[in-house]
């Protein structure tokens, strides 16, 4: 298959163009020496991004299913978690885990705090996405499954979730971009991510416009890559479902 015939190739081209422009800008403005530093920063950003999304993707369905089908104690626990993390700032959560947990005698690495805080934050938003998608699966599916004598958990696992999964992918794409943007906050708890490196290079070189423009381009490229990945996933997930434009 010709790569350029793929519907999402434009996104890939745009992302690569962002990275190329960032690199060109760095070389043109004498910041080429800082490129390895920036790459190391991107590494940390990517680590937090992957760790955080892993946490969010595990936590969100659990919280959503507890809120939907749990007994009253479990349900209130899930609601408490979701509302607390949706109702306060990501930065406050980050600082809270970073500064307050040591008072309980728990001292975590900044990286662990970052992944936990951002993962739980996005997971709370994700829980509402999962809940919405599960509720959007038509009632008839439940009724048919019950007519087939399936238990509640069988129905969820085999009938409802596979259909809900497709519905929630676009919303997850937005959440993952929110997560990418939120990773810039970890620079404030001493993690040397892309934003942290940008500040450092800015202080050393005083080339403020150039440094922050480069970093802006890198973030833009990264979020284009996320959009690309999610579109691919959506395409694959909707195979065989009689929905949308069909592929």
């Amino acid at each position, binding site marked *: 298959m010709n790569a350029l015939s793929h519907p999402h190739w434009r996104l890939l081209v745009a992302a690569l163009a962002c990275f190329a422009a960032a690199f060109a800008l760095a070389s043109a403005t004498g910041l080429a020496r800082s490129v390895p530093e920036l790459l190391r920063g991107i590494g940390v950003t990517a680590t937090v991004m992957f760790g955080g999304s892993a946490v969010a993707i595990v936590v969100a369905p659990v919280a959503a299913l507890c809120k939907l089908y749990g007994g009253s104690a479990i349900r209130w626990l899930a609601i408490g978690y979701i509302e607390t993390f949706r109702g*306060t700032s990501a930065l406050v959560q980050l600082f809270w885990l970073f500064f307050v947990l040591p*008072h309980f005698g728990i001292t975590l690495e900044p990286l662990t705090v970052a992944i936990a805080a951002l993962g739980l934050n996005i997971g709370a938003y994700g829980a509402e996405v999962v809940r919405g998608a599960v509720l959007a699966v038509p009632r008839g599916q439940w009724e048919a499954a019950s007519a087939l004598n399936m238990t509640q958990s069988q129905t969820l696992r085999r009938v409802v979730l596979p259909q809900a999964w497709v519905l929630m992918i676009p919303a997850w794409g937005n959440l993952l971009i929110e997560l990418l943007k939120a990773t*810039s*906050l970890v620079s404030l708890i001493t993690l040397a991510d892309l*934003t942290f490196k940008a500040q450092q290079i800015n202080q050393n070189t005083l080339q403020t416009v150039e440094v922050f423009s480069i970093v*802006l381009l890198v973030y833009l490229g990264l979020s284009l890559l996320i959009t690309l990945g999610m579109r691919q996933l959506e395409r694959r997930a909707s195979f065989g479902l009689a929905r949308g434009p069909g592929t």
Partner: protein
Amino acid sequence: MSESFWDWAYVWQVLPELVDASVVTVKATVSGFALALIIGLAFAIARMIGPGWLRQTTIGIVEVIRSTPLLIQLFLLYYVMPEFGLTLDAMTAGVLALGLHYGAYCSEVYRAGLEGVPKGQWEAAVALNLPPWVTMKRIILPQAIPPAVPALGNYLVALFKETPLLSVIAVLELMQTAKLLGSESFRYIEPITLVGLFFLFFSLVAAALVRALERRLGRGSGRVAR
């Protein structure tokens, strides 16, 4: 672990300062959101009825703003503007960054509202020989904005929760004050928890208000916000 886990005396001692700081947070929220509403509308209109080049530029700007971190935008505005001879104080830079960032989000909300106005309304306005500007102001916007209000309200809550970011450019809002108090006394648990509770309380109240508004608007005219 420190002597006591939660010190009420310390809470009463720091509370007045946090209350003062919350005024700054509220000011930043209100002015940032007012700016976002205006910028968002400008973006949405430029994207809808502007000439081709303006449309493309607006789409590009909105995408860039929406997919890059607010923190970087904040640094750019605060550190870069002086190089162009425009020195902003921290609060102004912060409000500007919040307004721009959420303006980009709001423009998408307005756009959905504008696109929800039936095509016949535009055609009728053309038939009545109304100039485009008047059509926008008198016919389209009054129909497009009410259904967009609940979504705009959600962004007000989101913007409110992003104001702690202004602490990084030393605006003395809640988060910065809490950190300063913490570093003076080496007790972070009370100030930061209080800040968290403050945000939680106001977000829950705001979310309830938005929901009430949504229900009311939904009842008002038959065809909006199911």
